[in-house]
């Protein structure tokens, strides 16, 4: 499958060169001249990158951009974890501390986690996996990256000129009236990025519906596709509500139009409702794609069909739909009606059902498998453990009586980091390692990668487990001055964060190293199933020289012990 013909057409024609470009774009890879033509070496010009409509190149652009934002958000975290080592305000003043955690939240959520898997791995892999030559709307795809960059750079710019201190939740009336920081500019940044997310979701949905290869019917699709489809539903149905809410805050602040202003009889809780209508499902935008990655990895490294394929597939859709019905569990002590709270409580608890299905099925997929403990599997198994803890502690928060005590404490901080970092980021790193040979044509150094996977797991737990204890003790979030009896636990957490920080630097280093020195990857280094492994590594610009014909279910490993499905 290394047929290079047909991929020789440059995606760009003759337009004037772009004046500027993000740093580091051309450092991606420079394969030797003798390489067969692929999507990376087909054209080295700046223009060919900045005007590309190739979904794989756009995925790479996203990869570089979100790594940049991850480093920024991570630096903020390192800074405030240092501050939190002592119970007093010694390293930073309160203004600075508040801006740091806001920056961490805004950057990590809107500019790293939400685009992470869908925009990098999803962009790269969805067309490959369904057997298409590109996303349904290649130009919109590129536009989405530009919107993302405009939003992201606006956010970075606001941080450079003074920052914003509202927290990533922008609660009114603090954000609309009282804060003296750059709320407007940040709101605009988030608003713009929202449209980038909408366009990505739209593209994935239409691609899955209309561009599947012949024979690729719904129950032959890899679970990666199912979970991206579910996440895309949330992106298109939830994100617009965030956009209009942020817009209302912005016009309230900027134009003096009162929407949530309590002085007019407006209701600040209404803002919270609208905000969480998006922002709770947004958690599933982060975690659902990760579910998809984990399904792929576990199947490939146990050489088994995924246990209960249909249940896992429908669980993704179930989570996406249920996720829209539970936003009020962020507001149990907000002054929301107690009866509404009870409805939101039981609906939130029910999310345990599809989540449990996934965890049980992944674990069962190991049964009678042929397990190879390479780095992606290490990340995937770590994911299952951390997601289990994160999910079960979510039940605590869905229970009204416990949530009254732990709401807005470090307990909730620990919980959502178990989901977002222990879940989404572990999945992202696992997926990045798994598909790295496909994306770059190079193999990463396995020993270093395993070491860093273990370090991430250990560092993560050391950072966030003490926060569960702190939270139940009652330490409120967004506090940097705290009672001295909680110092030990905070120091433990900061120590863990330093391990985690170093562990994250490892992959950044050796993955870049591998671009030049890593061994060449074959088309299918893991001997995995899936259309993406049937094209060369890296693929050619148009993916498939001949449209593939799909005749088998996903994960049809010839020696799979698990057969059939529970239907």
């Amino acid at each position: 499958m290394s047929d290079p013909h047909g991929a020789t057409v440059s995606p760009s024609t003759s337009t004037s060169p772009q004046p500027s470009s993000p740093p580091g774009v051309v450092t991606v890879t420079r394969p030797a001249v003798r390489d067969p033509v692929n999507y990376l070496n087909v054209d080295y010009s700046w223009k060919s990158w900045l005007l590309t409509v190739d979904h794989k190149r756009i995925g790479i652009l996203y990869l570089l951009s979100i790594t940049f934002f991850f480093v920024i958000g991570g630096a903020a975290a390192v800074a405030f974890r240092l501050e939190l080592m002592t119970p007093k305000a010694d390293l930073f003043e309160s203004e600075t501390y508040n801006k740091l955690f806001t920056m961490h939240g805004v950057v990590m959520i809107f500019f790293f986690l939400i685009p992470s898997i869908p925009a990098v791995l999803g962009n790269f892999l969805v067309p490959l996996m369904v057997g298409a030559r590109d996303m349904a709307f290649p130009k919109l795809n590129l536009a989405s990256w530009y919107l993302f960059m405009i939003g992201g750079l606006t956010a970075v710019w606001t941080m450079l000129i003074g920052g914003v201190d509202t927290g990533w939740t922008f609660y009114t009336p603090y954000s609309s009236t009282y804060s003296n920081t750059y709320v407007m500019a940040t709101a605009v940044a988030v608003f713009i990025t929202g449209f980038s997310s909408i366009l990505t979701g739209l593209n994935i949905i239409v691609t899955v519906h209309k561009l599947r290869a012949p024979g690729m019917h719904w129950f032959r699709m890899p679970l990666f596709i199912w979970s991206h489809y579910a996440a895309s539903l949330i992106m298109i149905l939830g994100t617009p509500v965030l956009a209009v809410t942020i817009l209302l805050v912005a016009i309230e602040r900027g134009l003096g139009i009162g929407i949530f202003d309590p002085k007019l009889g407006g209701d600040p809780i209404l803002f919270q409702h609208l905000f969480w209508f998006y922002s709770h499902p947004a958690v599933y935008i982060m975690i659902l794609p990760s579910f998809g990655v984990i399904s792929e990895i576990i199947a490939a490294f146990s050489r088994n069909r995924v246990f209960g394929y249909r249940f896992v597939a429908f669980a993704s859709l179930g989570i996406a739909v249920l996720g829209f019905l539970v936003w009020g569990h962020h507001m149990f002590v907000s002054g929301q009606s107690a009866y509404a709270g009870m409805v939101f409580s039981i609906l939130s608890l029910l999310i345990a059902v599809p989540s449990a299905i996934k965890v049980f099925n992944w674990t069962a997929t190991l049964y009678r498998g042929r397990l190879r403990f390479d780095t992606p599997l290490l990340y995937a198994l770590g994911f299952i453990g951390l997601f289990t803890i994160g999910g079960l502690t979510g039940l605590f928060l869905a229970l009204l009586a416990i949530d009254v005590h732990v709401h807005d404490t470090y307990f909730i901080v620990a919980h959502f980091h178990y989901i977002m970092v222990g879940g989404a980021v572990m999945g992202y790193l696992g997926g990045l390692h798994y598909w790295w040979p496909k994306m770059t044509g190079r193999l990463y150094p396995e020993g270093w990668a395993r070491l860093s996977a273990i370090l991430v797991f250990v560092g993560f737990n050391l950072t966030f487990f003490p926060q569960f204890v702190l939270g139940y003790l009652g330490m409120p979030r967004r506090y940097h001055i705290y009672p001295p009896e909680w110092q030990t636990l905070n120091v433990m957490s900061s120590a863990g964060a330093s391990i985690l920080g170093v562990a994250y630097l490892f992959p950044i280093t050796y993955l870049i190293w591998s671009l030049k020195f890593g061994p060449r990857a074959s088309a299918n280094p893991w001997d995995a199933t899936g259309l993406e492994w049937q094209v060369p590594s890296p693929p050619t610009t148009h993916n498939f020289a001949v449209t593939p014909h799909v005749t088998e279910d996903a994960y049809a490993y010839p020696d799979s012990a698990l057969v059939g499905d529970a239907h």
Partner: protein
Amino acid sequence: MSAATTNLPAPHDPAHPPIGLYLRIYVYLLVLLAVTVGAAYVHLGPLNIVVALVIASIKAWLVVMNFMHLRDSPRLNWIVAAGSFLWLVILIVGLLMDYVTRSPGV
């Protein structure tokens, strides 16, 4: 190459656009506009809003079905249209669930 594209009705025949239908729909819309304005002058109490929304929904239905050709569209487009409307209902019902049950003492 999609598995889902077969056996769908072709969009309305482009060679013979239903001009007459469009004009008829247009007249209906104008009549409904007059009706909704008129209804606003009748005191119906809380029913005013219901009447206004029903008329607006009929108008929207006429536009969506005929001008936007949903009538001749694949079922998937129906699902998208209905689904987005359903999601809006979820948002509004969820919000009202809080507001109508807010009461003192609890």
